């Protein structure tokens, strides 16, 4: 299925420094899903060319052939890691988007090359193939790796632990199998990424399918049963190396953002909530000698609130938790972006010193209590959630839904979905883009930008 080029795909860059100079994106891909599981989910194309009349608007949409997939995250078949010296395949084309259904465990493969605005479904990996070959289900994060497509999965086909990582062949899209040869004590799974320059993979923890699919379970949460660890792995040897426990108080250790520069061995991970005071936090992991350590570097406090305006789940706490769900790091490893989905805030930190972040910007949109409006809208619900950053670091694209069953618990009135654009100033600081605010019928989730963005590619050269 894969096609071969005569020169390397021009969307591949050896280093993050070179990728930051890539042409500005004009098209974005976004997935949307139907929380009622009655209509098919979709892969939507959005015009992000500010010179165009349709700026910020949907241009195309291709429906899934089934209902109830729950589109969530997605990723490319190949990317800049194809230039890595030990497993180079630079002449494969970046043209296929792999879109998992987090609930159905199917993975759809869409071809964007014939008509980038109207992708075509060309292949479907069924849940059974993933279960039979890898023993996993509920595929979540996709990363195009140096030697194949890596996918994390929340659990096994019964909905229990362990979750883990499996690999898909980048030539044939066949599921090659479970990635881990020795998983050590690791059971829960969520996100994963790597330090290619250190042959190190990192995985994080959310919960098993049974722990998350019916909504957040308050008893499990208060007992500290959701994920609170990260795991360090030898990437080529596929072996567990180290477990780092943040402590049971820190529930749901989600998005991993390693430094893009492969010569740096540190990165950031967001924690959704603390059981002590409902605060959210950002931690920096780093290599110290031969082992990794972790340190809390940002605390985002909960905001006191009148129980009357809170959903039942939160009334007892008399506060809105920030609920940091997604974070993103600019390609120059300087700016860290943080979505606080509960309080409806989007924050920017200067992380030039990864142990001493400085808050440099903040905008409000939505939020459980605040319901902050865009300049072109009335009060909004949901909050900044999935964030995708352009390679030049100047634009952050946001959507506002988290996960169908959890959306209902925190925003019981039903999330009205939107996508917005935030502009980042070169010296720090954020502003809402007045021209880009669009609402959608279905729930919006991850956005990826044509030809690559700050979370799509990884690099072997600094």
């Amino acid at each position, binding site marked *: 299925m894969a096609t*071969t080029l*005569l020169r390397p795909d021009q969307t591949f860059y*050896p280093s993050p420094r070179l990728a930051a100079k890539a042409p500005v994106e004009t098209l974005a891909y976004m997935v949307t899903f139907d929380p009622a599981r009655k209509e098919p989910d979709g892969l939507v194309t959005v015009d992000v060319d500010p010179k165009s009349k349709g700026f910020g608007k949907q241009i195309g949409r291709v429906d899934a052939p089934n209902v109830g997939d729950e589109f969530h995250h997605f990723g490319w078949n190949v990317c800049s890691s194809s230039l890595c010296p*030990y497993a180079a*395949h630079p002449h494969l084309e970046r043209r296929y988007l792999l879109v998992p259904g987090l609930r159905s465990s199917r993975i759809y493969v869409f071809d964007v090359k014939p008509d980038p605005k109207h992708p075509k479904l060309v292949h479907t990996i069924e849940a059974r193939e993933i279960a039979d070959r890898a023993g996993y289900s509920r595929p979540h994060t996709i990363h195009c790796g140096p030697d194949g497509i890596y996918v994390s999965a929340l659990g096994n086909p019964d909905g229990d632990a362990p979750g883990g990582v499996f690999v898909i062949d980048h*030539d044939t899209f066949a599921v090659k199998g479970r990635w881990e040869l020795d998983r050590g004590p690791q059971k829960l799974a969520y996100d994963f990424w790597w330090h*290619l320059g250190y*042959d190190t993979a990192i995985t994080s923890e959310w919960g098993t399918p049974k722990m998350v699919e019916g909504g957040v379970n308050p008893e499990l949460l208060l007992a500290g049963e959701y994920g609170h660890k990260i795991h360090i792995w030898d990437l*080529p040897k596929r072996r567990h190396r180290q477990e780092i426990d943040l402590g049971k108080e820190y529930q749901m250790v989600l998005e991993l953002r390693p430094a893009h520069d492969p010569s740096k061995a540190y990165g950031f991970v967001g924690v959704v909530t603390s059981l002590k005071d409902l605060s959210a936090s950002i931690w920096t992991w780093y290599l110290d000698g031969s082992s990794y350590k972790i340190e809390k570097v940002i605390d985002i406090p909960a905001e006191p609130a009148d129980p009357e305006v809170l959903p039942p789940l939160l009334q007892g706490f008399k506060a809105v938790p920030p609920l940091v769900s997604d974070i993103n790091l600019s390609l120059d490893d300087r700016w860290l972006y943080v979505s606080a989905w509960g309080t409806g805030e989007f924050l920017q930190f200067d992380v030039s010193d990864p142990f001493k972040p400085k808050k440099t910007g903040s905008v409000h949109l939505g939020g459980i209590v605040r319901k902050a409006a865009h300049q072109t809208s009335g009060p909004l619900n949901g909050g900044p959630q999935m964030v995708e950053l352009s390679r030049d670091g100047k634009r952050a694209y946001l959507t506002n839904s988290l996960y169908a069953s959890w959306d209902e618990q925190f925003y019981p009135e039903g999330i009205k979905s939107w996508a917005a654009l935030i502009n980042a100033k070169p010296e720090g600081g954020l502003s809402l883009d007045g021209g880009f605010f669009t609402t959608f019928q279905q729930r919006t989730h991850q956005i990826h930008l044509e030809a690559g963005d700050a979370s799509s590619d990884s690099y072997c050269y600094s």
Partner: protein
Amino acid sequence: MTATLWPWAALALLGAYHGVNPGMGWLFAVARGLQEKSRRGVLSSLLPIAIGHEASIAIVVVAVSLTEQLVPPFLVRLLAALVLVSFGVYKLARPRSHPGGFGMRIGPAGLAAWSFLMSSAHGAGLMLAPVLLGLPVYATYHSLSEISLQAVAAASLHVAAMLVVMGVVAVVVYEKVGLGILRRGWFNMDLGWSFVLIASGAVTLFTAI
């Protein structure tokens, strides 16, 4: 004169070709230099890569030399031709082959092992078979020691050419040009290489008959 020189020139040119090809080694050397932020990282990678390459072609050189001792020359050529054509056809069907289990921090021994596997998967040694058969010593019966001497000389010339070209390209890219060159200059030679394998198999076959 020309009849005795061409195989040597071909051996050196093939070595130079492998030296220029990013996938065969110089890119790995540059990557290690960038990771260590020093030219020493580039230079210290070159020899392990060359050793791995040498080991891969040595297998073919030894195989050809020994086969020469045991079977008539035309049969050697026939065998070489068959292997070359089938390998060329295989590379057409599966052009991308990268060994698994390697990473950026594999050390000198790992680097040599990687280079050995890459060179073997590429068919670098196989390509030398027809050239070796073109050397005068292989044309008529000679003692094993004479053949061995020439085989060692052939393999060494090939790897020396590769090492020099690889070293120059790696240092120039690391010091001056930068890796941006990859995007413009890394041409896909897989298809061409497959046809060259098949063609040299065909030529070897004709010289056998």
